[in-house]
């Protein structure tokens, strides 16, 4: 049982076409809601029952998030989809946009209806030219079919949906930086509170969800929250798209139930390369703590199990490393990424990410000092939890976890001025 929610259309001809989506029951939920004027609370209840949690990485219960929108406040509200998928190792939303854009459109329309927003924006990562075009075409199809726009299907309900291409900043995946960017400003996270539900896009109440989250909504309403919930495990409902990359035979996206053992997911991806052994896995994207092979082989892929194991499910971006990997080099690359992508607002992140990156780079190149490792951990701790957004945490967590699990390799680099792995 795989690829049946967000990837429902995947095995059909022209999976992105409106006709394909509709032939599989697409837009039926939207039409039903429009016709019956389903009370929003009913939809929220269904989502709550499904235990759908935010697929962008934070894992916040979606039904609860939607219920935060001020109900009785008049005026403009917005639904925003975060398709600024930029975390290294993550490429699931890209394929939803490419292969099943209509599920997202229907999900956003339903979300807009539920929270009282008649305008939606899909903010798409700057590098996603092809997915952007695909999504734009799908929008045209949906508008032409009268599924978006004014007085949709004579229901009296309006919903306009627009897509916006980003300009290549990772930070714009942070929801408030995304809002700033949408407003045409420099992408910098806002201090919270106020949260977007009270002060969002252009200062109006706004809900922001991840692409996968929104694309899951139509099927949940079609088959019921209970059904979806049971695809996963308690408190970790439904299926999840795992982007498996790195040293596996068949890298790619796999949509499987929450709580699938990692070993099974690895098997789906063809296992590690011939003659190699699994060394470590970053389970949720480059910002989540790395876990060594033995821990990973015993863990199931869901929010709670990974949290217990000392890491996070994140966006389900599984980076697999076999025994040919130099951990110092891997961390240097990750640290450099966060250094380049820090927005520069908060002191600890602006100054700290550069510091971390430079020291790790130095260690990799044989210029490490005996005090460096303790210092790296200490500096990371001084960044973590002290910034406006989570980018500081994202930069700190890999450093702490890499040194925790592979300290000997770092020490070897410092002592011998060369790599242990290639030695």
């Amino acid at each position: 049982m795989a690829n049946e929610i967000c990837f429902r259309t995947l095995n059909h001809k022209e999976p992105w076409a409106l006709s394909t989506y509709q032939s599989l029951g697409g837009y039926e939920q939207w039409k039903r809601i429009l016709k019956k004027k389903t009370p929003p609370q009913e939809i929220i209840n269904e989502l709550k029952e499904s235990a759908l949690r935010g697929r962008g990485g934070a894992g916040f219960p979606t039904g609860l998030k939607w219920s935060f929108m001020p109900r009785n406040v008049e005026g403009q509200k917005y639904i925003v989809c975060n398709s600024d998928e930029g975390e290294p190792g993550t490429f699931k939303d890209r394929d939803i946009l490419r292969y099943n854009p209509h599920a997202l459109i229907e999900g956003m329309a339903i979300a807009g209806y539920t929270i009282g927003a008649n305008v939606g924006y899909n903010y798409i990562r700057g590098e996603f030219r092809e997915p952007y075009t695909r999504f734009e075409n799908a929008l045209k199809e949906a508008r032409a079919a009268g599924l978006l726009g004014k007085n949709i299907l004579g229901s009296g309900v309006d919903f306009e949906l627009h897509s916006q291409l980003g300009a290549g900043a990772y930070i714009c995946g942070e929801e408030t930086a995304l809002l700033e960017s949408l407003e045409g400003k420099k992408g910098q996270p806002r201090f919270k509170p106020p949260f977007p539900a009270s002060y969002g896009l252009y200062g109006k109440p706004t809900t922001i969800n991840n692409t996968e989250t929104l694309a899951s909504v139509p099927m949940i309403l079609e088959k019921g929250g209970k059904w979806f919930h049971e695809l996963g495990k308690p408190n970790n409902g439904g299926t999840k798209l795992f982007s498996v990359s790195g040293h596996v035979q068949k890298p790619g996206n796999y949509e499987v139930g929450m709580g699938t053992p990692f070993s099974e997911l690895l098997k789906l991806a063809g296992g590690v390369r011939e003659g190699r052994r699994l060394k470590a896995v970053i389970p949720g994207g480059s910002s989540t703590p790395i876990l060594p092979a033995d821990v990973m082989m015993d863990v199931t892929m869901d929010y709670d199990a990974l949290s217990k194991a000392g890491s996070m499910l994140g966006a389900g971006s599984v980076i697999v490393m076999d025994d040919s990997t130099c951990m110092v080099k891997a961390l240097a690359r990750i640290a450099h990424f966060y250094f380049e992508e820090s927005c520069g607002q908060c002191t600890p992140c602006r100054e700290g990410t550069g510091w971390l990156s430079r020291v790790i780079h130095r260690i990799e190149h044989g210029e490490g000092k005996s005090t460096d490792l303790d210092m790296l951990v200490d500096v990371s701790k001084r960044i973590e939890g002290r910034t406006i957004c989570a980018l500081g945490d994202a930069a700190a967590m890999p450093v702490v976890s890499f040194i925790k699990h592979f300290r000997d390799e770092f020490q070897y680099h410092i002592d011998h001025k060369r790599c242990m792995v290639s030695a």
Partner: protein
Amino acid sequence: MINIEIDGLKIEAQDGAMLIEAADEVGISIPRFCYHKKLSVAANCRMCLVDVEKAAKPLPACATPVTEGMKVFTQSQKAISAQKGVMEFLLINHPLDCPICDQGGECDLQDLAVGYGGGETRYSENKRVVKNKNIGSLIATDMTRCIHCTRCVRFGEEIAGVRELGAIGRGEHMEIGTYVASTISSELSGNMIDLCPVGALTSKPFRYSARNWEMQRHPSIAGHDCVGSNIDLDVRDNNIMRVVPRENEEINETWISDRDRFSYEGLNSKDRLTAPMIKQSGEWQRVSWDTALAFALNGVKELVGRHGAEHLGTLVSPSATLEEMYLLQKLVRGLGSSNIDHRVRQLDFSDQNRAPAFPYLGQSIESLGQSDAVLLVGANITKDQPILGHRVRQAALFGAKVMCVNSVDYKVNMPLAEKLITDVAGMEAALAGILKALLNMNKIAAPSGIDQLLHSVSISATHEKMAANLSKASHGSVLLGLSAASHPAYSTLYALAECIAELSGAKLGSLSLGANSAGAWLSGAVPHRTADSASSNQTSAGLNAIQMFTAPRKGYFLFGIEPEFDSVDPVVTTQSLKDAEFVVAFSSYASTVLSDVANVFLPISPYTETSGTFVNVEGRWQSFKGVVSPQEDTRPAWKILRVLGNLFELKGFDYMSSIEVRDELKKCLGDIKLSNKRAWLCPELSGNISEQIVEIPIYGADAITRRAVSLSITPDATGHTIVMN
């Protein structure tokens, strides 16, 4: 009120206050860089992280609202370690150039590093270097020192109203710079120097000239506009090294204009007059005070003897002190002349007998900032009175409808609800249109004569909108600016504005020239009133500032006046002075024109070297002391006038201090009515006006400012211009 506890101290905080405000209120200091009480909260420096009970992470005190029962620890292990962590990050890329940094000794980063920084660094990588930007003649940049607090950026957006600086690039590559490489043009730009917590933005004129611990700080009052901003003068070796704001929430808050900040440069100008001089056979000679005073005495005596005292004309700068003006008018009136005036830019004096006691703002400066509709008439408030412009702008940001009727389309830094730009002749019709719209709208009985006056006036949609905005306002303000006061039909404009204000329930106010126009009126530096009758008129008025040149006098006293600048018609004025038999110039400077026309120079001390009083546009008397001793042989003018009074054998010139002079005047005046109300008299529309108004350049309003080199090369300093529409 909300009850919270900080470091065990139970306090009551305002609803909606941030933690840092509550702590500041009770004197608990929390370190900060980006937070500033007059700017929006950025919460980016993270220096103010504190430990809040039940919060997992340390929270920024600047952005954490107080909640009932909150317990805060600013000195706990968690708080201190967070603050020390931030300090380490701030220092790793900050250059260790304190010994050559102008901010050294008054640097927030340096000060806080003593408390929160480590003894040595753990950072052994290369430090960041950032290229400096040239942003004009007032602010020097050292961008490597920048800690990215964005105070300067927020100042531009929120206070100056021009987004000139921005943060470009991201992460460690973020740099503060101008959007398009250009100079800063805000008239309040110097405040960014104070706001910058490090040495990234420092004063260019002051650069490398003194250390802050070498200077002594003395309170004073800025002498360049009618605001009377409170300032501190920093002095070293009997020199004014720089000027900084002194906080006064009722007047200038924490700001001062660039004019108030940088004009001190003019104090040491090369043409500063440092000794008495007399002109004999066309040659200037430096002489002793006795010789100079005797020369002046004889000259004036002879002249009065020959032609009579009515042939004496006296012009005084509107930026002279109250004491100087009072003694000067006492002297010339004692000699038998009432030809004294300070209104050097005025053309229309026809209603001077009906004028209020002094040109009054009609309300306090603080109150002006709370207006919900403002009509500016012939006013370039942003540049002429920057601090008042700032107050009006704040009102505009809070939704006040700011409107203007001007003969020049001034660049303003605030949203204008309505704008009416006309030629000089059209100013009357514009105001009449608003008045007529107001009458139509409210169906109120017009004051006598108005119906007939407005009979042929046509109304436009703009007139109606302006009238509506003023009518709807609960706190409207109608302000007449400097170009209204220089208008050929000023009395008509005033009466129309008065009527508009009256009928819409708005407050009428005047923005006056120089630092002390209010003081000039009160002390009797006008030809038709004396200090003992500040609001009633003399039976026989003297000649005003125009008359004494169109009907040239045989002798003149010029006090702080530069005829080529302080006159509406420099050609006529200069010629009259040249033709005169005897001219006594009380001046701090010897300009070419003044040297040409004067017979004796009496070097007087500028406001930094003498005690005195300025009365601001609110009617607030602010006295100050001289903070440096008079340069060489210059003397405080009140002392010179005292001696002259005695030499002329006039009574009542035996003052021991300037305070005695002030108190005598105060006693004379009794209770001064703070009001612009007067009996109604219908004005007449003057019809054809062909004169143009000579705009006063922002940095050309007084002799000191004219000599401030750094100001003279800013974009605002464009010199005298006649603007034609």
